[in-house]
């Protein structure tokens, strides 16, 4: 039972981690809290579902497609809407993205209706045994792919020019102008990448959960907690926090009862905010936006 709990928590934590990385990045770099992140995940899930239902292509293979679609969406939203707010109160971005979330969810409700849809491949619900513990194939695959993607993103940030531009802008958006970097373009790029990661998370989620237009709600709460727990703007933090979060939930559920797992998560959230706002691995200058 203990082993199974650990496995359950870790595997799910991988998915949560990738769901949170994009959100954390966007917040850390631009100070934008994207309330529509859950909706982005939902869109990614639908893209994969649609491709699967129409062409029979496995969602793992359609991840690049959902990432591309979401990149365009995220980039567009930032470029056209949010960039204008960057000079005024950033807290307005919260309200705006809340409105965006409403729009996205309802558009999808109109198109797809609230019918539950699910992706069933030949390996769905199958698992193999590793000692006393059962490991479902899908969850393991999601875990591996999610971490690989996070690692890839880390490399992108630290080794490519575009990535470094993003990191530099987060550090000091005035000085980067002197280096020939336009912060607004960087913001748009960051938003696009953040959304793309959400799209990937959605594709993965489509393999584990039934899809509906309102599925984003179940993610956004966890994403918040993980972001803050890991440290706003830190990818390693988000990944670590995602795994920790998955474990905490699994243990809370098995020790206290499943209906306690939400409360435990919130308590942790509030505690972190009060005791250690920079989270596990956060750096002080990230997220300290006025």
């Amino acid at each position, binding site marked *: 039972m203990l082993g*199974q709990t650990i496995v359950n928590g870790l595997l799910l934590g991988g998915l949560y981690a990738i769901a949170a990385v994009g959100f954390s990045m966007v917040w850390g770099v631009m100070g934008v809290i994207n309330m529509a992140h859950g909706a982005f995940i939902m869109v990614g899930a639908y893209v994969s579902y649609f491709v699967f239902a129409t062409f029979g292509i496995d969602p793992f293979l359609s991840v690049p497609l959902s990432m591309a679609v979401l990149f365009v969406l995220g980039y567009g939203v930032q470029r056209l809407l949010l960039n204008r707010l960057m000079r005024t109160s950033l807290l307005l971005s919260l309200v705006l993205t809340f409105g965006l979330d409403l729009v996205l969810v309802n558009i999808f409700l109109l198109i797809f209706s609230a019918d539950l849809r699910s992706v069933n491949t030949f390996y769905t619900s199958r698992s193999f045994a590793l000692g006393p513990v059962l490991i479902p194939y899908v969850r393991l695959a999601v875990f591996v792919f999610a971490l690989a993607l996070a690692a890839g993103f880390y490399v992108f940030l630290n080794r490519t020019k575009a990535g470094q531009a993003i990191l530099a802008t987060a550090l000091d958006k005035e000085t980067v102008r002197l280096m020939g970097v336009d912060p607004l373009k960087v913001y748009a790029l960051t938003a696009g990448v953040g959304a793309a990661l959400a799209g990937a998370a959605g594709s993965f989620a489509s393999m584990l*959960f039934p899809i509906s237009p309102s*599925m984003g709600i179940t993610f956004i709460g966890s994403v918040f907690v993980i972001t803050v727990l890991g440290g706003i703007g830190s990818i390693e933090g988000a990944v670590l926090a995602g795994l920790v979060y998955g474990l905490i939930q699994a243990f809370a559920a098995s020790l206290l009862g499943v209906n306690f797992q939400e409360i435990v998560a919130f308590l942790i959230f509030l505690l972190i905010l009060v005791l250690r706002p920079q989270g596990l691995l956060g750096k002080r200058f990230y997220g300290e936006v006025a």
Partner: protein
Amino acid sequence: MLKARFAPLAALAMSVLALIAGAPDARAQNVLKIGVAISQSGTFVREGEFLRDGYQMWADKANAAGGVKVGDKNYKVELVIYDDASQAQTSAKLTEKLITEDKVQFLFGPYSSGIANATAAISERYKILTIDPMATANNLFTRGYKYFFCPAALGNTGLWPVVLLLNQATPKPATMAIIGPDDLFPNNNAVGAKEKAEELGFKVVYTAKYPKGAPDLSTVATGVKSAAPDVVLASGYSQDSILLVKALRELQVAPKAIGLATAVAVPDFRSALGPAAEGIMGVDYWAPTLTYSDRYFQNSQQFADEFQKRFGHAPQYHAAAGAASGIILQAAIEKAQSLDSTAVREAMLQISGQTFFTRYKFMPDGTNSLATLFVSQIIDGQPKSVFPTDIAQAPYRYPAFK
């Protein structure tokens, strides 16, 4: 110049015409208005639309037969339908609007006991009779409301048919797990099931309540696995039932039977699970194989065929329940020979009989003492009624899975 002078005259003429066109016909028919605040969007949109189509089916049949007869007048049935977006507060607001603005004489209730809780308070205050076949939570009927009726079986009996089936199975399973989301209807089901199970000698070795929208049930499945029950009963809705079955399979939990309080009838469920749905049992309020009859439908198959023709898809039990509610209301109105809610309410307690959906005889608390449920099992990809044996289409399979 000419145009300018005529413009005000033209405007006046048009306004007068508009007024005349819009004015109510002085020789208007007698109309029986029934209000419906129901989920046409949001979480319960599917079920809400099934239910609404059921109400509409009755309205159409009644009108085709000349309307509802009171005294020497024939009343045309008109449904006034609003979308409550699956929100209790919205439904309550709409119910009040229906009563005070649209001046409906009766109400057909919303889908979901939670929402009905809010609307029943309104209709009770205004003393307007409401029939709601999908408001089956027991607490709705312990509050002393006089104007709220439900023809279908109540929540606490939701899983009883499965328990009774298992009681007859050979070899009889010894241990049972009961799980479900923490919500009104599922809790009713779970508590009722546990009582019945223990009464019949089953040992309930594991129970769990998970949050309503929980995205992941692997911890519950882990708990079930370590308790290793012979059979698993689940009291939740479609979405979490799908998650649960998947989680159980992932962890290779292999009970001899899985019984759900709902969902097997709904096509989404079967297509979402694919082959994993095979053998799962669920509780149904209705199937086209029932043989009750009433003035409009000789049996349930006829209802199913006509519904299919009218709406383009096969009916689910919600639709059947909705149509039956209309038939019952009509019977009560005709017995009371009045459209006054209080008189019709008295009549509701006096009538008894059959609709294609169920037999009925109402108690003063608004419940139907003759309501029944039965078990369906997915056999070869299709739900078939398997219990009680007198209405079974096929024998049940136990152990349910190979």
